[in-house]
């Protein structure tokens, strides 16, 4: 498995970004960039090649779902794997994300193992 892929973490809460970053490091992903909301994430996506987006659902300016939709609607970005982070199992949210083309979803709080599993699942399809 390619651990060199570049992962973009999108969350407005800096501590949360760090949590995810640490978990990613535990499972061997070191190449990480951070975005603080959907708008910022889109800018990053436009400026460099991102191999996996891990985005929170609830963010100011642009929600995770809106970001997902924007990514899927963009010709150059639409194939980018997208892992949505949600709180609890808000089923409606998950279904909305699935319909919008999310690659997978993960429920807070999660462990490094679960994250690893989800990422593996996403990447092996590529």
């Amino acid at each position, binding site marked *: 498995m390619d651990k060199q892929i570049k992962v973009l973490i999108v*969350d*407005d*809460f*800096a*501590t*949360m970004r*760090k*949590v995810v970053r*640490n*978990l990613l490091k*535990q499972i061997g992903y070191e190449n990480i960039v951070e975005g603080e909301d959907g*708008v910022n994430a889109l800018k990053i996506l436009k400026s460099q090649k991102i191999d996996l987006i891990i985005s*929170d659902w*609830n*963010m*100011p*300016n642009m929600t995770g779902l809106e970001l997902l939709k924007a990514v899927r609607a963009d010709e150059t970005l639409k194939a980018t794997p997208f892992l949505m982070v949600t*709180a*609890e*199992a*808000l*089923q*409606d949210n*998950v*279904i909305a994300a*699935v*319909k*919008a*083309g*999310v*690659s*997978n*979803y993960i*429920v*807070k*709080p*999660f*462990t*490094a193992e*679960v994250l690893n*599993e989800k990422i593996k*699942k996403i990447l092996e*399809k590529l």
Partner: protein
Amino acid sequence: MEYDALIKSIDELASDLVFLDSREIDIPSSGKFMNSLEEIIKEAGRLHVSPLVQIATGLNQILQKMVFDTLPDKGLGFGTFESGIALMQEISGTLQRNGEFSGDIQPFLEATTKLTGMALNMETPKEQGAQPPDQETQVNKTQVQDLSLVKDFIAEGLEYIDEIEVNILNLEQNPENADYINAIFRPFHSIKGVASFLNLENIRHLAHNLENLLDKARNNEITVTPPLIDLILDGADVLKTMILQLKDEIENRPVKPLNVDLSALAERIQNAEKMGTDDTPDKKKLGEILVHDGVITNEDLDHALKVAKTPPAKKIGEALIEEGKATPKQVSQALRRQSEKAVDASTLRVDTRKLDDLIDMVGELVITQSMIQQDLSQQVNASKNLMRDISQFFRITSSLQRTSMRLRMIPIKQTFQRMSRLIRDLAKNEGKSVNIELIGEETEIDRNMVDEIYNPLVHMVRNAVDHGLESPEDRIKAGKPEKGLICLRAYHRGGNIVIEISDDGRGLNKEKIADKALRKGVVSSIEGLTDQEIYMMILLPGLSTADKITDVSGRGVGMDVVKQAVEKLRGKIEIESKLGVGTTFITSFPLTLAIIDGMLVKVGEEIYVIPTTAIRKTLRPAKKDCSHVVGKGEIVNVMGQLLPLVRLYELFGIEPEYKEPWDAIAVVVEGEGHAQCLLVDRIIGKAEVVIKSLGSDLKNIKGVSGGAILGDGRIGLILDTEGLFALNDRK
């Protein structure tokens, strides 16, 4: 043919299924299938092909179960899904051939029901259903041990709670604004999310409860009422305390016990959730604004409300305009105020140290620039091109300096919001009710100033609520609205930020103040004193002891302290007041503490900077005006006032150009109610200088508050007038 689109959708779905890599439907494919199925349900519903609707709905449910990974038997799930698609194809085939459907869908529906445990044609439950099995409650322990994460969480969490407070006060003003609810919801949500990773169960639980409460408010299941706002504020306070406890804990300080009954709070939250919606939401905001502005009376409003309700229904604003009670302009202004929203500029968070470094460096650049400028002016044959390029360089440097200064500027908003919270709490404690009006929240001020001005402002605000505003009974007696008004207003004037704090309370009683001042011997006569000057007396130390001044004017508790604090920041206070109508404190502060407007003076070979704000006048005293007074030292008669003379060259031990006052120049400086003359050789001019600290070794030097690098690269010490007074007194 009318079924064409439907048949095409079904065929596509079937071919997508065939092309799946494995006998498992992953999430992206589920999404695709769901969208197609929804398309089919819609189309089939339109054409009244109910069997297709039923099958597609069943398939959708299977997919949902797959997404949530709650199917007991995945293989069976896939098999059922496949059979459902095949059944749909069969139906569509018969439809295509003879426009009718024959076939038994019952076995499929039964299999689906068995699989999903859901009766068909039923809505998917909207509740937060069973949690997916892969969610582990046990959080990775290595997470928790990461102290730096906890520290980050504390810092950011506290910031978020500040944000909550700001927005909740906004919400109180606009209870129906979903944006504000969202803005409060989100931080709670984020705090909860991180707390769950860090195993902070108490914090997570409370944040979760508050979040749920707000979710209900957001979905209009409960109404935003003052008690609800109180509850959320209380909740935010407890959350803050818990985070601070955590901070104490990791910094190995004694942890203050949490004096809050968490279960009582939880109960309050639960009760609030059950409260439901209020059927008569407060809709007459526009009218209230107009009444408050004095445009219309309460009777006008009542009448207009009636008119607006009788058919043909109109908006209240229209009714008022038709009745001639308000002009369209007034209404539109009120409407605008009603919907006024803070400008949310996109921002970037930067470490203040980096910012300070940058500003420091720009300061150095400006100094180097002026050095070049001076060198150049001495050059006789400087080339024209060089001159032009350099003047261009100067322009860029000075705009760079302005911009970098602005980097450190932040809107006064947060300070205002913190104060409005304070006003609210204070008023509540005193049984007064008060409206708070904030104007000019976007006005910017240096980040470093914000904390400095907070305390004096708080003191003035406290006074306004405490003593300025009357009790509700007194207000009614005086014919005023029961609710008092406190208005905080900020704007820029010159290089200053002006902050006004006004109340519509009882106002200052100038006779009583003057009387007190006379008795105390602060002044010998009040003749010729303007009202302004009399009001200013409450800022004097002798006149502002709490018990005495309070019965005089209801004002002035510790106002001398405020004055000192304001002056320390090189600010000024003015007071405007009208008995029975209200009082306004107008404070103005420099926008930044980093730059000072100074007068450059020369003593011997040394150059000193005197802050312009401290200078009253400069003069060359006549020989007859200089004398010695026993026990007081040298004094100078300045227009009838005897002021002590300070010979700077003596104080700093330098050889001056002129020793005698009548040869040199005296600069009259004042501060904290007294003045003195500083003797200098010459005045060089006025300059804006960037204040540099002298470093920790020299920080206790009296009479000098800092240094500045001057245009020629030399260092000029900035004189601290207060310190000079102290030095001279000791002598």
